[in-house]
C-alpha cells in the first residue's frame, strides 16, 4: 500500500522496458502489451482514488514516500499526492489506455518505439504530479519533453520537424529558468530541494521572491500556454499524431496550471499577489483571444488547439481569483479540458483516419454517413462550450462566479470579459460542427465513410460517460480538491495578514466576498446549507 504510488508511477516505465524484449515486427504484441500495462496502471491508480482521505483532518500529502536519492546534494526521492495531484493522476491513467487503443489503426510504423515513447511519457507525467522534491519534479518535467518530442517528430504530419523543434525549444528554454530558480531556492536561507521544507522555511526577500516567481511562472505559463506564449501549441497540435495531441492537450497542458497551483503560488505567495492582476489579465485576454483565433481557422486541429488556449485561460483565471470557488473551478476545468478536448482530438483523429485531411472545408454533410461519430462530436462540443448537464458548465460556472466574487480590484470585469468566451465558444464550435457534419455532401470522397467501429466506440464512450457524470454528479470530483484548495487559501490569508500588519489599511485580496446585503447573511439557510 505504501509503495502504491511509486508502483503506479513506474509501472509504465517497466512496461516500456519490457517492450524492448518483444520483436519489432510483432505489432500486435506491442499494442496489446502497452494496452495491458496502461490498463493495469489505471486499475492500480483506482487504489489511490479509493485510498485517498479527503477529510480536512487528513494529512496534506498521502501515499508519501521519502528516500534519499543523491544525499550529497540534498536531493531526495520524495513523492506524495494531494487531492489535486490525485485527480490529475487519475486523468492521466484514464486517458492513456484510451490513447493506446486509439492508435491501433492509426500507427502502423515503428509501433514498438511508439508504444515505448507513450509509456515513458506516462511515467514522466505521473512522476511530475507525484514529485515532492524540486529536483525530482524537474527531472520528470523535462523527461516529458523527450518522448513528446519524438512523438511529434517521428509520427507527425508534413511539417512535424519545425513544430517539434519549436515545441522543444519553447518549453525547454522556459524550464531552464525554473531550474535556476530551483537552485536558488536550495541555496537560500531555509531553502531546500524538498518541496515541503522549502515551502515552510523559505525566507526570500520581496524582490528575490518576485524573480523566483517569474522564473517558475514563465516555465508554467509556456506550458499552459498563456497568451502571448501560446504559439507553439497550434503547430505542435496540428503536426502531432492523434495520440500526441490527446496527451498534449489532455495532460501536458495541465502541467502548467498544476505548476502554478503546486509551486508558483504556494512557494511565493507575496510575489503571486503582486503579479496577480497581470496574470489574471493575461488569462482573460487568452480566453477572448484564443476564441477569436478559433473563428478564423480552417484546420480542425488548429481550431481545437486555439480553443485550448481559451479554455486554459479559464483555468488560470479561476486560479488567480484566489477564492475557493475559483480555485476549485480551475482544478475542475483542468479535468474537464482533459476529458473533452481529449475526446475532441480523438474524434478529429477518427475523421482523419478516414479522410486523411484535417481541413474543415474537405468535409461537410457527413452526419448522415457517420451518425454516431456526429452524435459523439456534438456531445463533446456541448461539453466544450459549457452546456449545463455537462462537466464544462460546472467548471466554467465555478470559475466565473468565483472570479466575480473575488476580492480582486475590478473582479467583476475580469469575470464579465471572461464570460464573453461563453458566447465565442458557441460561435466557433458550432460553426465547426455545422461545416463538418451538416449540409449536403459536396465532396464525393465523403460518401462512403464508415461509422464508429467497436474499437473506436470503446475509446470514446468512456469519455462521453465522464462528460455527463461529471456534469450531473460533480461533487465526488470536487471534494478531493477541497483540502488542497483550502490549504492554499489559508496560506495566502496568513501571508496577507502579515502584509496587513506591515502596511495597515491594505485591503483584503484573498478569499470570497461576503454578500453585499448585510441582512442576507441572516437569511435562513444560508450558512453552509445545501442551497
Amino acid at each position, binding site marked *: 500500500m505504501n509503495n502504491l504510488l511509486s508502483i503506479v508511477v513506474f509501472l509504465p516505465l517497466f512496461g516500456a522496458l519490457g517492450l524492448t524484449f518483444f520483436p519489432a515486427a510483432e505489432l500486435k504484441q506491442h499494442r496489446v502489451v502497452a494496452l495491458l500495462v496502461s490498463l493495469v496502471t489505471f486499475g492500480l491508480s483506482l487504489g489511490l482514488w479509493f485510498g485517498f482521505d479527503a477529510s480536512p483532518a487528513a494529512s496534506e500529502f498521502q501515499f508519501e514516500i521519502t528516500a534519499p536519492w543523491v544525499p550529497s546534494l540534498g536531493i531526495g526521492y520524495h513523492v506524495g499526492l494531494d487531492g489535486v495531484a490525485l485527480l490529475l493522476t487519475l486523468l492521466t491513467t484514464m486517458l492513456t489506455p484510451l490513447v493506446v487503443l486509439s492508435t491501433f489503426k492509426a500507427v502502423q510504423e515503428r509501433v514498438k518505439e511508439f508504444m515505448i515513447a507513450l509509456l515513458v511519457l506516462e511515467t514522466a507525467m505521473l512522476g511530475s504530479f507525484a514529485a515532492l522534491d524540486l529536483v525530482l519534479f524537474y527531472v520528470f518535467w523535462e523527461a516529458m519533453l523527450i518522448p513528446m518530442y519524438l512523438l511529434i517528430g517521428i509520427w507527425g504530419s508534413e511539417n512535424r520537424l519545425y513544430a517539434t523543434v519549436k515545441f522543444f525549444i*519553447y518549453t525547454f528554454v522556459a524550464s531552464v529558468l525554473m531550474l535556476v530558480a530551483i537552485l536558488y531556492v536550495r541555496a537560500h536561507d531555509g531553502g531546500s530541494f524538498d518541496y515541503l521544507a522549502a515551502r515552510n522555511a523559505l525566507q526570500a526577500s520581496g524582490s528575490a521572491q518576485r524573480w523566483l516567481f517569474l522564473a517558475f511562472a514563465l516555465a508554467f505559463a509556456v506550458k499552459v500556454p498563456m497568451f*502571448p506564449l501560446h*504559439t*507553439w501549441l497550434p503547430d505542435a497540435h496540428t503536426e502531432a499524431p492523434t495520440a500526441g495531441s490527446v496527451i498534449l492537450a489532455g495532460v501536458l497542458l495541465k502541467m502548467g496550471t498544476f505548476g502554478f497551483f503546486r509551486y508558483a503560488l504556494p512557494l511565493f505567495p507575496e510575489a503571486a499577489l503582486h503579479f496577480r492582476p497581470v496574470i489574471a489579465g493575461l488569462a482573460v485576454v487568452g480566453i477572448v*483571444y484564443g476564441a*477569436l*483565433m478559433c*473563428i*478564423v481557422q480552417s484546420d480542425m486541429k488548429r481550431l481545437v488547439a486555439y480553443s485550448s488556449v481559451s479554455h486554459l485561460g479559464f483555468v488560470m483565471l479561476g486560479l488567480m481569483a484566489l477564492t*475557493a*470557488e475559483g480555485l476549485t473551478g480551475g482544478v475542475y476545468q483542468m479535468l474537464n479540458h482533459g476529458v473533452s478536448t481529449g475526446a475532441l482530438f480523438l474524434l478529429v483523429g477518427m475523421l482523419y483516419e478516414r479522410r486523411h485531411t484535417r481541413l474543415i472545408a474537405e468535409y461537410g*454533410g457527413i*452526419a*448522415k454517413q457517420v*451518425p454516431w461519430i456526429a452524435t459523439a462530436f456534438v456531445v463533446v462540443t*456541448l461539453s466544450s462550450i459549457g*452546456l*449545463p*448537464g455537462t462537466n464544462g*458548465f460546472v467548471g466554467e*460556472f*465555478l470559475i*466565473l*462566479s468565483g472570479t*466575480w*466574487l473575488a476580492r480582486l480590484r475590478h*473582479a*467583476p470585469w475580469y*469575470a*464579465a470579459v471572461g*464570460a464573453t468566451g*461563453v*458566447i465565442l465558444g*458557441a*460561435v466557433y464550435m458550432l*460553426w465547426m460542427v*455545422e461545416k463538418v457534419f*451538416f449540409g*449536403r455532401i459536396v465532396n464525393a470522397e465523403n460518401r462512403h465513410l464508415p461509422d464508429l467501429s467497436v474499437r473506436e466506440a470503446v475509446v470514446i464512450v468512456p469519455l462521453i460517460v465522464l462528460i455527463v457524470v461529471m456534469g*450531473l454528479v*460533480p*461533487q465526488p470530483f470536487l471534494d478531493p480538491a*477541497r483540502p488542497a484548495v483550502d490549504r492554499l487559501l*489559508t496560506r495566502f490569508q496568513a501571508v496577507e495578514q502579515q502584509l496587513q500588519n506591515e502596511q495597515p489599511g491594505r485591503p483584503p485580496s484573498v478569499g*470570497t*466576498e*461576503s*454578500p*453585499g*446585503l*448585510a441582512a*442576507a447573511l441572516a*437569511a*435562513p*439557510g*444560508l*450558512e*453552509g446549507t*445545501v*442551497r
Partner: protein
Amino acid sequence: MDNPTVAQSGLWLLILLPLAGALVNGLVGRKLGKANVALIAIGAMIAAFLSALVVYAQVLAGRNVAAGGDTWFRVLGPDGRAMVSVAWGLWVDRLSGTLLLVVTGVGLLIHIYSTSYMSHEDDAGYARFFTYLNLFVAAMLTLVLGDSLVLTFVGWEGVGLCSYLLIGFWYTDEQKAYCGRKAFVTNRIGDFGFLIGLFTILSIFGTASYAQLAAAVKGQGIHTVLTAGAFSGWTLGGALTLATLGLFVGCAGKSAQLPLYVWLPDAMAGPTPVSALIHAATMVTAGVYLVARTSFLFALAPATMATVCLVGALTAVFAAAIAFFQNDIKKVLAYSTVSQLGFMFIGVGAGVFFAGVMHLVTHAFFKACLFLGAGSVMHGMHEDTDIRNMGGLKDKMPHTRMTFLIATMAITGIVPLSGFFSKDAILAGALMSENAAFPAVGKIAYVLGTLAAAGTAFYMMRCYFLTFSGKPRTAVAAHAHESSPAMTVPLWILAILSVVALFLGLPRFELFGHWGEIFGDFMHPVFAQALGILHGEGGEAAEHVALWPFAVAWGVALAMGGLAYAMYVGNLKEVPGKLARAFPAVYQFGVDKFRVDELYDLFVVKFVKNGAWVLWKVVDRIVIEGIFVNGIPWVVAQLGRFFRLGQNGDLQRYAAVIAVAAAVVLWVVLGTGAR
C-alpha cells in the same frame, strides 16, 4: 408565497419521465420502428401530464409543492461558507404550476400532432425528432420548476440546445443548419446577460434560490446600502438594476425581443410542430416567466421595469410592422409571436404581472393552434408556405379553417375570445401603471401597444383571408386535402382552449368594491411581494379601472379586421397591389424585414470575423511568431554569422587580429589610454 409548502420528491418524475423517453428513443429508437417510438414519446408525455394534473390539484387547493434540495455542486471555502451552492430543488407554486400545465398539456397535444406530421421521415429521423421533443420538455420543465436561478439557467440553456437541434432538424439543408446555429449563438448573447445578472445577484445576496431571495429582500428598500462585495457602497436598487438588466438581456435573447429577436423568424426552418411548441407556446415565453418569477427583484429596480416595458412595446410595434409584408405563412406567425411576446413584456414591465402571464397562457393556446394550423395547411399544400399561392382552402380543409379562424379571432382580440382579455388587461394595466423612474412609460407603452394591436388585427386577418377565403389561386391549392385526425383533433382542442381561457380574464366583482380578474386573484400570492414594493405595503394597484381602454381595443380589432376583409376579400382588393407599386422602396424594405439581418451581419458578424482575422495575421503571425519567436533565433543566428567572420580558420587573419588587439591593449595599459 403565502401558501404553505409540502415536500414531494416525486416531483422529479415530471422531468425524468420525458427525459427517459428521450434516452430510450435516442439510444435505440431507430431500431424500434415508428409506432413504438411514438408510443414511448407520447406515453412519457401522458404520464407527465397526468402527474402535472395531480400536482396542480394541490396547487389549486392552496398549497405549494417542493422537491429535493440535494446538492448538485457546492464549494465551501476554508471558513465553511458557501457562496456558490447549487441544489437540485424543484418548486411548484401557482405561477410555475400554471406553466407546468401549459408545457405538459400543449406539449402532449403537439406530440400527438407530430406523429402524423412527421410520418414522412425515415425511422431514424422519426426517432431523432421525438428524442429532441421529449428532451425539450424535460429541459423546459427544469426551467419552469427549478427553485433557483441556476436551475432555471440549466433549463434555459437546455431548451436552447433543443431549439438548436430542432431548427436544424433537417440538417442536410445548409440554410436550416445555419438557422439553428444563429438561434443558439444569439441566445448565448442573451445568456451572457443572464450570467452577469446571476453573478450580481450572488454577490448581493449570496444565494440564487428564489425563496431565499424573496426572504432576503423582504423589508428592504431601494435605498438600502450594500456593505460588502464588489457593490459595496451601491444602493440595493442600483445593484439590482444591474442584476435585473442582465437578466432581461437573457430574456430578450430567449424571448426574441429587440435587439435580439432576429433568430426567431429564422427558427421557422424547423418542423412546424417545433415552431408551435418551442417557438410559440413555451420556450420563447421563458423570458416572461423569468421576469414574473423574480418580480420582487424587478420591482426594486424601476429603471429596469421601465426598460422592460419599453422594449416590449417597441418590439410589439416593430415586429407587427414587419409582419405586414410577409407572405410566408410561418413568417407571419413568427413575427406575430415576437410582437405578442412584446405585449407580455409590456405587462410584466408595467407591473401587471398577472396579465403578462395570462397572455402567456392564452397565447400558448391560440398561437400553438395557429402554427399547427399552418402545418396542416402546408401538408395540404405540399409544403408550400406562400400564402399568395393559397386561397379557397376553407372548403378543402374545413377543420383547419375553423380552428385557424377561431385562433385568429383570439389573437386579434375580438370579444369574447381569450386574447381580448389577456391583451387588454395588459394595455389597460400599462395605462394605469406608474413607474418611479420613468413615469410616462406606461402611457407610451399603451399607445405603442394599441398600435401594435391594430397591426395584429390587420395582418392576422390578412393571413387568414389570403389562405382560406376566395378561390384557389394555384392548382395545388385547388387540390389541397384535410389532414388526419391526429392533426385536427389537437387543433380543435387548442381552438376550444383559446376560447374557454377567456374565463381566466373574467372580472370578479365582490363586496366592498374589490375588483379583479379571476386569474389576477389566483396569481395574487405569487406577485403580492412585488406589488407591495410597487404600490406600498398592503396596497394594490390604483383600482379605478376605466372601461374605455377595453372599448378602444375592441373597436381597433374590429376596424382593422374589417379593413383586412375589405382589402383581401371585399371591394378594395386592388389597394394592396397599388400601395406596393406606389411605394416600391418602402414595400421592398418591409419585405426585406427592414434589413436588420444585413445590418447585424455588417456591424457584428463581419466585424468580429474580420477583427479576428486581423488579430490572427498581425498579432499571432507577425508580432508574436514573426518578431519574437522566429525573430530572436534570427538575431542569434545573425550574431553567430557575424562572429563567424573571425573564425574562418585563416591563420594570417588570426595573426593580424592578435597583433591589432595586442597593440590596443598596450596602448590602453601603457600609453595615452591609461591616463
